[in-house]
């Protein structure tokens, strides 16, 4: 059984800090637009990130220190969780399948892709939204691919951004480089360890 990449999206954008909620909405909306019409129950979200939740955690505790623990604004609390981005993508896109957040850089990106491919392979989902996001700093960066099992739909291009492998978003950006170069439009995924290795190889070959 093959797992096919049918679409991808990546972009980077500057936000006025702290950007945790606005940036998540931007990413979630961008992805939701690309999966309209898929079966929500049969779609999963697999996010890798090294820093989702960090800005909100710092902002909430700074406010607690300034205002007192009993007076801090709780608005930031849901965004303190690293899973907030994946949850927001799922809510915006209406996804009701598995929703993963793996924390780290390239290794988390490969693991997220492996989970997605394994779920497709085992029939747990038909569509997988897989990607990485760097959520701290002056520029928010995100790169996502959309995978499907057992189809041969043509891949489409999207925006280009920088590549590298020191973060999950850059790792997926490098994977998209390879996809755009035509070296990995179709990803063969017999089982999880092979998928991990192959995705890692694609990422490495793009750098």
């Amino acid at each position: 059984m093959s797992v096919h990449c049918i679409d991808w999206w990546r972009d980077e954008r500057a936000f006025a800090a702290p950007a945790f909620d606005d940036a998540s909405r931007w990413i979630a909306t961008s992805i939701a637009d690309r999966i309209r019409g898929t079966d929500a129950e049969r779609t999963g979200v697999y996010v890798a990130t090294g820093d989702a939740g960090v800005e909100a955690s710092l902002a909430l505790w700074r406010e607690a220190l300034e205002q007192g623990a009993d007076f801090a604004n709780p608005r930031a609390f849901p965004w303190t969780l690293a899973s907030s981005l994946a949850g927001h993508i799922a809510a915006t896109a209406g996804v009701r399948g598995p929703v993963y957040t793996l924390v780290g850089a390239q290794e988390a990106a490969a693991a997220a892709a492996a989970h997605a491919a394994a779920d497709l392979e085992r029939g747990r989902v038909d569509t997988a939204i897989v990607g990485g996001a760097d959520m701290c700093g002056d520029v928010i960066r995100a790169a996502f691919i959309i995978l499907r099992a057992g189809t041969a739909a043509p891949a489409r291009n999207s925006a280009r951004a920088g590549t590298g492998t020191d973060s999950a978003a850059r790792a997926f950006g490098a994977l998209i480089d390879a996809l755009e170069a035509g070296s990995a439009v179709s990803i063969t995924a017999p089982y999880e360890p092979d998928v991990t290795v192959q995705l890692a190889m694609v990422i490495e070959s793009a750098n």
Partner: protein
Amino acid sequence: MSERIVVTGIGAVTPFGDGVDVLWQSLIGGHTAAREWDDLRAEGFRVTVACRVPGHGPDDATRGQRLGLAAAREAIACAGLPLSDTIAVCIGTTMGESVAFEQAAAGAPFRAGSAAANVFPRALADALHINGPVRAYATACAAGNYAVGAGADLIRSGAARAALVGGVEPFSRIAMVGFSRARAMTPDVCRPFDRNRAGMQLGEAAAFLVLERESDARARGAAPLAAIRALGLSCDAFHPTAPRPDGSGMAEAMRRALHEAGIAAGDVGWIAAHGSGTVASDAAEAMAIRATFGREQPPVSGLKGALGHSMGAATAVSAIAMTLTFRDRVLPPTATLLEIDPQLDLNVIAHVMPAPALRYALNCGYGFGGLNSALLMEAA
């Protein structure tokens, strides 16, 4: 059916103290670890009752790593597992090393890699000299179940020979502020499924299980304690913090676990419920259980009255309780329960109950973002 993945070791550091024995005796005894904390009162928290782990040094930026290492060492010793580079480490957490964030907000130097969720599996792998796959699951309060399911999958796929899986959650003042200001916490004691339940209570814990193929375990003379059958996952896609009121997302996770394992709802003999003690979550979970099990509803326990809510570690602690339940064939009660909410129509157990024929049990955990998990375990 693929070969069973079995539990051969367990270890835990909980508010009852170090080790699975004190955890189990406390759960069976119907005790609660909730108590008043002077430091929280002095720091101006509205809610000052919590379930925190005694000892293990101060609340500092490496506390979670210390708790995790203590629990992991107990699990590995219990399993008698020879350490090697083909052992996976999969850890779930909600807040990561929370104190590192708190110190950074106060002006201390900060590096995300020393505070975020992946600090735990990396620290444990380094300390234990394990070089296998290392994964950090930041999937809110369902994270422990995610880690257990992922470790089992890594073994099934051949990516790892064994897996150290579980959850780590050091006490988080950020979470105290967040839950308290969101008015989700009870000032009294957490009472899951009680008519007068008033909210959740924050906890702290680290819990680990060692997983192996059954044939590998038996080949080296290790006795399986329980088996991991299937993990069902779903998402509410509804609200950042609130569950779907009809519990349909939770029920879907339960159904997916049963479907993947190929067993009927009536085969499940016990549910370790999420049971956070909030009005909305417990009501939604009750609807999910009723929708999934109908008239064959098994006994239900909510362990957060005893342990508080250790967020990303909570389902890992419950998986250990489930393992011990299979061993001793008794179901732990819902500590602190005074009067079952009759509107929930649940078979909640208030006292320890014999379960001589128990074969399957379901470990449920849900988190912010509508993340739902149900881990199906089987007797050894």
